[in-house]
């Protein structure tokens, strides 16, 4: 079977899988950002228990395997009465895992906003919430965006694991095709290229655009 024949026979399935991978990536990324902002800010709370909670979350989700976390969410939580469909379990696991990494990025960025900005916020008597939301976070965003570019690519690659709980993503489709055709080089080679293209021509340009967009809004240009 030539490669064009392979593509015409299995291309549609790989395409369907790719669309699921894209959905998983977007949803996991949104969740990761939400979690990272929440736990990143908790990490610098003046309240010790709040900080401790954030530390526990970050350490657990960074310190253990994403695959094990995925199995926990999909196979073990139902034993405690919490059943989640596999599609949701997939992006939730990836989002929670990468969110833990992101929390450290958020914390670091917030703390590297110059002290003078916090002090100006106090001098204007802004409430702590408004100071964070209007003054600190917008500036932290500029600082943290390059690191998020990396994390987003990690999110994309992390979603390949959701195939292990039978979410019909790109990797799942590739494994199925391989199981019936044994054309390993073609099918995994194609999957490799698709993941690369998504990262290189999807995520990277998007993050670059976002960096430029934010820089413009920040009056840096």
């Amino acid at each position, binding site marked *: 079977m030539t490669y064009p024949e392979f593509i015409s026979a299995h291309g549609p399935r790989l395409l369907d899988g790719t669309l699921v991978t894209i959905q998983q990536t977007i949803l996991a990324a949104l969740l990761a950002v939400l979690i990272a902002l929440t736990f990143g800010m908790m990490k610098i709370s003046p309240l010790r228990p709040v900080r401790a909670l954030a530390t526990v979350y970050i350490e657990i989700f960074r310190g253990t395997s994403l695959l094990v976390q995925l199995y926990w969410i999909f196979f073990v939580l139902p034993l405690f009465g919490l059943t989640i469909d596999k599609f949701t379990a997939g992006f939730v696991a990836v989002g929670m895992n990468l969110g833990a990494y992101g929390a450290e990025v958020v914390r670091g960025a917030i703390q590297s906003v*110059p002290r*003078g*900005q916090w*002090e*100006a916020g*106090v*001098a*204007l*008597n*802004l*409430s702590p919430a*408004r100071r964070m939301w*209007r*003054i600190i976070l*917008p*500036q932290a965003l500029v600082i943290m965006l390059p690191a998020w570019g990396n994390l987003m690519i990690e999110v994309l690659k992390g979603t390949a694991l959701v195939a292990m709980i039978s979410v019909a993503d790109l990797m799942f489709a590739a494994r199925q095709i391989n199981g019936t055709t044994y054309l390993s080089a073609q099918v995994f080679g194609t999957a490799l290229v698709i993941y690369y293209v998504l990262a290189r021509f999807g995520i990277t340009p998007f993050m670059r655009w976002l960096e430029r967009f934010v820089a413009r*809004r*920040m*009056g*840096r240009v």
Partner: protein
Amino acid sequence: MKQELTGYPLTLDGPDRPMIRFADVSKSYGDLQVLDRLNLDVAEGEMVTIIGPSGSGKTTVLRMLMTLETIDEGVIYVDGNPLTHMPKGDLLVPADRRHLRRERANIGMCFQHFNLFPHMTALENCTEGPIHVLGLSRDAARERAEELLEMVGLIDKRDEYPARLSGGQKQRVAIARALAMRPKVMLFDEVTSALDPEVTGEVTEVIRKLVGKHNLTMLMVTHQMGFARDISDRICFFHNGRIEEQGPPSELFGNPQSERTQQFLSAVNEAI
């Protein structure tokens, strides 16, 4: 900070009460004593300048008033009310966040490094506080901000971001931003120290305009002796966390009594 204070009044009353009072205020960082039982009164409408060698506690005084630093001992009053403490029964106890927020509304501050918000235009810098803290409508805040930007001579820069302003312009926007909160006390912390010498004048001109306006009380830390001499009602020379000597500019500069003051002033004069 000590838990409860006795022996200090809960409020300052009477016609001659000061706008600012430091009563026995001490502060140390580890072994370093920054302020040593400081007592200082500033009257309403008075312009007081603090001078002294670096590390003498000048800036700390301003930062305490802005509640950016805590104090170890003593109490600070602003406009008759305790700032660092609040009354509880007959005692003064350390202020909680709500008390600090209420009392520091009396105070505005300009910093050495401006600390403008880089993601907001000059105008937005000046409307942020009035809208979100004072609760002014957007129109009212805008009107107030434009009036102040006009006063500092930057109305044509209102839509520029700080990155496109010169140092002197940034500091003038910062002054407008602080004044937009209508403080009773303005603090100027080495506001010309980060500027090129040829533009310090545009900032000092603005401060000069404020003297005697709206009964504004001003406390300034500066190394510009000529400027301090020109506009201050009183000069305080700080040394080792204490006021070594104070008086009207003509006396302090013209006839300093303390040896420390003489040394400092002659060193400053030589540097010029």
